[in-house]
């Protein structure tokens, strides 16, 4: 009986983990890609996030919000990586294009559009400070409350809000005013 219950519990946990990958995998990878701007690094870190989340899943049960839990792990991994790898350099536009080659199946116009948007994103992210980037990306991909974001980035709420506002103003200058 105990063996059966344990097996059912294990199956339920595996199902939960598969749900995590399906529901939050894209958001986690998107967050990581925007933070590190290297697709292969983002892929590696995404897998690392899910591995760590699986190993420490008991802590998740106490918190409840899966995406917030995963993004906190992702944010910590990015910070650790940034601290550990001083030689780490974000890709510039040419580097991004080299790592994200145009899809041959897509038409030339779609490819050129993608390249253009990627360039704009790279430029926008470069204009943001690291703290602004973290706050905005956690808000976008995790839909975390500002209190949760403040706890994740280990900053006071007022400072977190200030980073968010300044970041948005920078984006407005870059993406809205320039376009108009």
């Amino acid at each position, binding site marked *: 009986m105990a063996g059966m219950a344990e097996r059912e519990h294990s199956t339920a946990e595996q199902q939960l983990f598969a749900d995590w990958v399906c529901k939050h995998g894209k958001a986690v990878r998107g967050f990581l890609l*925007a933070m590190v701007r290297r697709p292969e690094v983002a892929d590696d870190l995404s897998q690392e996030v899910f591995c760590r989340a*699986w190993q420490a899943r008991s802590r998740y049960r106490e918190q409840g919000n899966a995406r917030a839990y995963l993004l906190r792990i992702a944010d910590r991994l990015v910070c650790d990586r940034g601290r550990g790898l001083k030689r780490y350099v974000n890709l510039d536009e040419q580097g991004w294009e080299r790592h994200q080659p145009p899809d041959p199946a897509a038409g030339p116009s779609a490819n050129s559009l993608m390249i253009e948007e990627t360039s704009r994103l790279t430029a926008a992210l470069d204009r943001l400070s690291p703290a602004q980037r973290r706050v905005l990306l956690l808000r976008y991909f995790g*839909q975390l409350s500002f209190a949760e974001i403040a706890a994740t980035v280990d900053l006071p709420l007022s400072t977190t809000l200030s980073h968010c506002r300044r970041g948005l103003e920078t984006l407005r200058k870059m993406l809205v005013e320039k376009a108009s």
Partner: protein
Amino acid sequence: MSEEVEKLQRMLERVTAAEDVPQHEPDPETASLREAWLAFGHLLEAARLPAEMLLDNWPVPPPKRSYRRFWPAAGVLAASLLICGVAMWALQATRRIENASLSPAQTASTGVTHSAPVKKTQKPAASVNEFQWDDSFDDQVAQVGRQVIDVQQGSYAWTDTGGAVQSKIEQIQQDFKDNSL
């Protein structure tokens, strides 16, 4: 929390709300920030689209192996090995004792020579028994030999005695023939 911070938080929550929530912002600053936020979201979505295929191929890592059953199983295995070892040792000890306690008579009657190798590490008592057995066997052989000799001697004595009687009888018969009696 101060009123300004609360106001700013409410404003930013509206600005950064999910994309599919329709909002009408009377405040132009909030509206422009909202526009910037949406543009930023579009760029993020466009940038991560090509890698979605990779995500679909991710294998779900296997669950961490549970060691809950490992220690009981290891304990059972160790206990089994210990029991087997003790049983083997007891069996060998029994055999050694049986070999040591075989009586000389039994050995003599069966005629089995104890040529089985005796380890040098055996107890001295076992060596004494072995020598005793050998002496006894030799004694018995010697005794049998002596008896055979006695029987032969008796036979010779009997033969000598018979010979004397026979010669007397023959002499008497000769006297009868000669009528010398």
